[in-house]
């Protein structure tokens, strides 16, 4: 596991709640990646930290507190007691009732209930699959959001201003972290033409090498977007500049329009 030792050193402080946000987020991302050893270390560290409770001097709460609590608890317990159903009495002999019930159950249950149960099982399976899918999606989004915040907050990330062709127009900003990727953000960005998107390009330093196509985005209704590129097509050292151009929907393998925004990678 990458950098596991570095994270292991922080498990006690994490359990104590003493890590500053950047370190906390980095450790949580690492835990979310599924490192079983660090997860176990954190769980045990929580136990260790919980022992600090014993350093507080014990003190007795007032009798009134216990009185209030017990009153609430008794009232809630009472409200959950359900009246017992009265046993039903019948003039019909039990054996006859049982026979009729068995006959009915045999004729109806075997045909109808089987089909119903199959339907319910199918529906339950569908619901479970949908929930699992939803959860995976949320976890994925959370991971991406955490990675974005790590890139934005890490002091070693390089800031790149992407200036527009119109000096008065909006500017975009990118932050590039050598390990975690690039985040590009924009506000008040005009919408691209219909059936077009904005596409990011990595312009290589090597002379004659073509711009490397990257992700596409359309700003939201407020002209805002955040783009995370976890695996840039070029390394930071080999990249001269970032650029964004308007391209046909679906993207293009090479730029077909001049860049709307660009900025050098220093």
């Amino acid at each position: 596991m990458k950098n596991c030792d570095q994270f292991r050193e922080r498990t006690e402080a994490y359990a104590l709640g003493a890590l500053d946000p950047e370190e906390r987020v980095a450790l949580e991302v690492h835990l979310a990646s599924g490192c079983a050893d660090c997860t176990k270390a954190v769980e045990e560290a929580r136990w260790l930290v919980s022992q600090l409770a014993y350093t507080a001097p014990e003190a007795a709460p007032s009798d009134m507190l216990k009185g209030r609590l017990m009153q609430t608890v008794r009232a809630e317990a009472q409200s959950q007691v359900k009246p017992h159903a009265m046993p039903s009495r019948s003039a019909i002999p039990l054996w006859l009732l049982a026979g009729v019930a068995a006959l009915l159950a045999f004729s109806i249950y075997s045909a109808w209930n089987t089909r119903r149960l199959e339907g319910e099982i199918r529906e339950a399976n569908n619901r479970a699959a949908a929930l699992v899918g939803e959860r995976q999606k949320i976890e994925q989004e959370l991971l991406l959001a955490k990675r974005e915040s790590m890139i934005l907050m890490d002091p070693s990330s390089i800031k790149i201003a992407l200036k527009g062709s119109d000096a008065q127009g909006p500017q975009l900003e990118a932050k590039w972290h050598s390990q975690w990727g690039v985040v590009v953000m924009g506000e008040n960005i005009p919408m691209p033409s219909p059936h077009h998107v904005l596409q990011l390009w990595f312009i290589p330093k090597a002379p004659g090498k073509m711009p490397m196509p990257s992700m596409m985005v359309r700003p939201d209704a407020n002209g805002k977007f955040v783009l995370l590129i976890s695996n840039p097509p070029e390394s930071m050292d080999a990249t001269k500049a970032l650029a964004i151009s308007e391209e046909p929907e679906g993207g293009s393998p090479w730029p077909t329009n001049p860049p709307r925004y660009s900025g050098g990678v220093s």
Partner: protein
Amino acid sequence: MFLAAFTSTGPREVSPDATLLPRLLQKDVSAFEQLYDRHSRLVYGLVLRILQQASMSEEVVQDVFLQLWRNADQYDASRGPFVPWLCTVARNRALDRLRLKSERQRRREDQPDELPSLVVAPEYEKVLDDKRRAERVRALMASLSPQQKKAIELAYFEGLSHSEIAATMKEPLGTVKSWIRNGLLRLKEGLQATS
């Protein structure tokens, strides 16, 4: 299920809590009362140490025990031993109240209000009664340097981060990190030696 953690077989189940907690699931008022009697002094002492105000501390303790009463069946079995969990809930609640009180929420604004985290007792954990455990932990804390002790207490009882502790104590950030880590490791070693 949360409560299964207290009912499975093993050396840690000698605690009377193990028999009370399943009854709590059945909404047994007397089991709740016994749990309250057993642990309210520890929980109240902890909350009072954090909040330094009796009436507010009682409100928090009331919340904690009502949460236990109402939601005992919602927790996962693997959430671990009872008393550490209860103390974790109480500390979280008290620190939330403290931050609200002093408008110092900025540091945790991005943290979700989550249920208490998993607390797993390590292999070396030994079943000690509360009194002996308190004596042991206090003795170990007393053996730390005054700065180590203060840094850990600022984090645990006041919810301060490394940076905030460094600013409060006017010491370099790296020094504060070392004090806290080495102090907690010493506490861990001491507890291991106890078992």
